[in-house]
């Protein structure tokens, strides 16, 4: 299919699935087509040229508003493009639009948006959570409104919505993709992620974005990247090839609240990989059980700091009338009105855990837990963490190349159930994604079909594919390995259980066409 035809099809889907509320703003359709046509005529096209890529609304764009789905930034247009946006444009890609999200990335169901929830609705009457916070990006890919999408992942915000909507969501190692122009939620955790319907597409985008950016002070330097690529401990493992990998099963992730259907899909995925000659090994990550609590101390703490800049003084919206006392020019009212309930909650949480009375018991403890989580991973991975100084260890029998575990404890919940959920239960959704975020590791969520017995007969009859997200986690810098295992898993799953055609919603099975 030519690029023009593809773009037309995607633009059609944008209209068809507008009710999913995946976008907060869309690029002008005519401009998109003109740019697509121009891209088709360039002499050396690369895999991204002429491709429509959706961008999460917390990533700055000059041409489209950047609101982070917050009232306080409604109508805000950034004076500059984020580095990742510039990189996409330079590669010939077209920004399809800005996608819906939980306000400033805070949420797991994309319900905390000034623009309303982005919902997964594959058929009449279905109102499911698209996951958060990059729910819009995941939905836009899932419903065929774009070729691929950028999201951001702080504690699972790319992987969780990918799992719920049945697409692939990749969070690279921290520091590989530039954050310049990415609105900070918790900058020690924030990572730009990529969502797509195939690992191959994601790989193409990742290659374009995976370069040092001097604008981002946390972007890995070239020499560090080179060092990681030639990690001496990698070459020590002569038997490590994609043909025979040691795959770890973290027992600590087998929690009692894990949905049995998801558990069975996990087993199915492990069996598929085992059938290809990989070996399975139990591993223990004891600090995991504290990871979620640590995350919900650290992320709000950084958020309370990062969001202090939104005062309506230099940009963004301001409350009507006089704010503050007559003698001062403050902005309590502006901030009170501009932020939604969840953002206010996390700012308060963060302000508390950084306060003089609480910092030692909360923030400092959480940082220690974060270090333990990272050590846990370093203990079980066969590759040495290239950012740690300890000498490379030889591979022991217990060590593994990658981990495989579910992305979320459940299938996508209904929006109605989410609405009544108390915040603590909502935070539980992130239990499997947060550890990799704390350790800065590459992780990817791949949709794997449910066991036949677990499928909902109604959906089955309507030819709607039913999947659960499986997460592959690798050592820091092992992004290529994580991607290759994901590609293999997707291939295995598609072989047994194919998705619909190109530019169709991912949930359509081929039978749909008959």
């Amino acid at each position, binding site marked *: 299919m030519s690029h023009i035809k593809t773009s037309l099809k995607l633009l059609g889907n944008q209209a068809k699935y507008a009710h999913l509320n995946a976008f907060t703003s869309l690029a002008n359709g005519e401009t998109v087509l003109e740019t697509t046509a121009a891209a088709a005529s360039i002499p050396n096209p690369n895999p991204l040229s002429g491709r429509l890529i959706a961008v999460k609304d917390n990533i700055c764009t000059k041409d489209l508003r*950047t609101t982070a789905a917050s009232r306080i930034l409604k109508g805000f247009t950034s004076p500059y493009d984020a580095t990742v946006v510039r990189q996409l444009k330079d590669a010939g890609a077209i920004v399809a639009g800005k996608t819906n999200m939980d306000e400033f990335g805070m949420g797991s169901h994309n319900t905390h948006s000034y623009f309303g929830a982005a919902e997964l609705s594959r058929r009449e009457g279905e109102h499911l959570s698209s996951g958060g916070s990059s729910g819009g990006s995941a939905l836009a890919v899932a419903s065929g409104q774009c070729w691929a999408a950028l999201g951001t992942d702080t504690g699972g915000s790319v992987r969780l919505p990918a799992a719920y909507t049945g697409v692939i969501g990749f969070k690279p190692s921290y520091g590989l993709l530039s954050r310049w122009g990415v*609105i900070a939620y918790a*900058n020690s955790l924030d990572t730009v992620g990529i969502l797509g319907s195939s690992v191959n597409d994601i790989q193409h985008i990742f290659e374009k974005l995976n370069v040092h950016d001097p604008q981002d002070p946390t972007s890995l330097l070239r020499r560090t990247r080179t060092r990681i690529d030639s990690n001496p401990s990698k070459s020590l493992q002569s038997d490590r090839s994609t043909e025979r990998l040691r795959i770890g099963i973290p027992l600590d992730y087998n929690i009692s609240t894990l949905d049995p259907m998801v558990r069975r899909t996990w087993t199915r995925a492990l069996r598929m990989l085992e059938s290809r000659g990989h070996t399975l090994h139990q591993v223990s990550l004891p600090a995991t059980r504290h990871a979620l609590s640590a995350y919900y101390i650290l992320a709000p703490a950084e958020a309370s700091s990062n969001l202090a*800049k939104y005062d309506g003084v230099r940009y963004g919206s301001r409350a009507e009338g006089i704010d503050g006392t007559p003698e001062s020019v*403050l902005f309590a009212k502006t901030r009170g009105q501009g932020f939604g309930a969840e953002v206010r909650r996390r700012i308060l949480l963060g302000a508390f855990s950084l306060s003089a009375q609480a910092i030692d018991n909360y923030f400092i403890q959480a940082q220690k837990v974060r270090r333990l989580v990272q050590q846990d991973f370093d203990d079980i991975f066969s590759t040495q963490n290239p950012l740690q100084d300890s000498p490379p260890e030889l591979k022991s029998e217990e060590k593994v190349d990658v981990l495989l575990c579910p992305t979320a404890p459940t299938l996508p919940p209904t929006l109605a159930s989410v609405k009544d959920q108390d915040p603590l239960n909502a935070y539980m959704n992130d239990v499997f994604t947060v550890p990799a975020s704390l350790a800065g590791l590459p992780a990817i969520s791949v949709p794997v079909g449910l066991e036949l017995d677990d499928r909902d007969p109604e959906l089955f009859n309507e030819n709607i594919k039913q999947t659960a997200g499986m997460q592959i986690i690798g050592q820091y810098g092992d992004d290529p390995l994580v991607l290759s295992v994901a590609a293999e898993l997707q291939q295995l799953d598609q072989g047994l259980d194919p998705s619909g055609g190109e530019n169709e919603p991912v949930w359509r099975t081929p039978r749909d066409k008959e």
Partner: protein
Amino acid sequence: MFVRPTLAALAPARPYICPSCLHRATFQPLISSPYTSALVATRRRALHTVGNPSTDHDAPFRKTLKDAAKQRKRERSGDSVHQASKASEPRLQKWELTVGIEIHAELNTARKLFSSAASSTNDAPNTHVALFDAAFPGSQPHFQIETLIPALRAALALDCEIQPKSSFDRKHYFYQDQPAGYQITQYYEPFARDGRITLHPHDFPNGISPQGGPIAIDIKQVQMEQDTAKTVHQPPATHLLDFNRVSHPLIEIITLPQIHDPTTAAACVRKIQRILRSVDACTAGMESGGLRADVNVSVRERHTQAAQVGNSYHGVTGLGQRTEIKNLASVKAVEDAIIAERDRQIDILESGGVIEGETRGWTLGSKSTKRLRGKEGEIDYRYMPDPDIAPVLVDKDLVAHLQSTLYLSTDDAIKMLTEGEEYNLTSKDASTLVSLDDGARLEYYLDVYQLLHLTLRSRPECLRGAGKVTGNWVLMELGALFKNEIWSADRVPPNQLASIISHLLQKKITGRTAKLLLSLKFQGDSRDVAQIIVDEEMALQPLSQEEYIELAQRLLVENPNIVKDIVEKKQYKKVKWFVGQMIGKAAEGKVEPIAAETVIAELLNLPPGKLK
């Protein structure tokens, strides 16, 4: 006097003086009156040297020193009580004051701390603002590594230990001049610690240290941080924000609470200001807003057990409850605010009250400090390491290099000038040289001396005492000419003064000629000193023996009475009169007194040895 009321009238009306206005005021006198230059000179001195505007700064510094020495003498002989203020304030015998100071100084850097925007002072508002400076969404800090250099120089000049690793933290508070909602500073790991500043008697305006000898004050730490935006209030309700100043690099210098006297606190601030300028860490002084101080003040009863008063600050224990006075913009404000706050606290304690830990403010000219906020209103800054800024690692080679290229500290300079054989100045002259004109006078002196040294390399016998002679010429002769004018090294360039002194030391000209030459150069004679000497035939060209005899004989014949006095009445001293006449009659510099005396004595047949 005319000058002081004028200045006093200006001061309260202009709490902030921008440096360019200051320049204009200094160099483009608007009124052409004979008093203008006096006004300018006074202001200038108040700004740059011992500027306590209320003290008698019209007196030249040397006179102040002299008076101080006299007073010291009197004190030693028991004429006066140890300290006047203590005598009039018996309460101070009972209560001891303790003060710690935090000084914020703008670093002399080309760029801001976390963006490549230029640092500026007087450019059009909001013309130097990077995305990060205005806290735009998605922007990130770019630490400008070269801002470290002046910071390191400052810390080294304050005898600090440079930390191999330091890091940046966010200090949170909301204010419209703080775009990010936090200030980036160094709370947990400052870049320099454990410094020290020593106040010598010459660091006090009257040359007297309140404790007699030198006073050492420990510096807890020096940290780098961002400045805030400038708010310009336009009544009734408009606040204009200028973000040019946002993120201008500052250093904050924190002393331990070891100061027990308001004048010591003032001297400490003044000296830190001078040190920062002398190592080129900062350009602007307090007067132009480039330096601000916060002081914390407490009092405690002397001679009580430490256990009874239990406050401890920075490891200094047994202190009274302290209050903090913020944002003092001049040395005088520091001193006055401390005195007012000390007296307020003593009043409360003597009437049985309790001091509250609170933040207070001070406005120039007021009688007391004003409460800004109490403990309950205290801001919890919620310090958090900035996750976007990597730790700063400073190589010890860099520190060693900066240390070796650091300018002389005032104390080291005085030591160099007074100790050893080279310069051999009196400590009075040395401290005068160092304190004048922001060190420019000392630089001038060293230039002249060095040039002189080069010229007279081959004649070491002429160089004996050259340091002292140069000192006299720079301070006394040139000082007298500059009495009512602003110092400028270009008026008589160092090589010209060196040439004058060199001719003098080689006895090529007389002292009178030398003074005349200096005065000619000062008045703008553009010719070289050597050229003037040739043109005006000023060189000391001794008369021939015949010419001496001829001149002497003529004078002897013209003045028979005086000859009679000498020969008959043996009034040998009158020979000197003839010598004077001979010098006067001959062309400038032609007659050498000793040669003239010899000729007279010979002609009159005086017995040898009678003239001495």
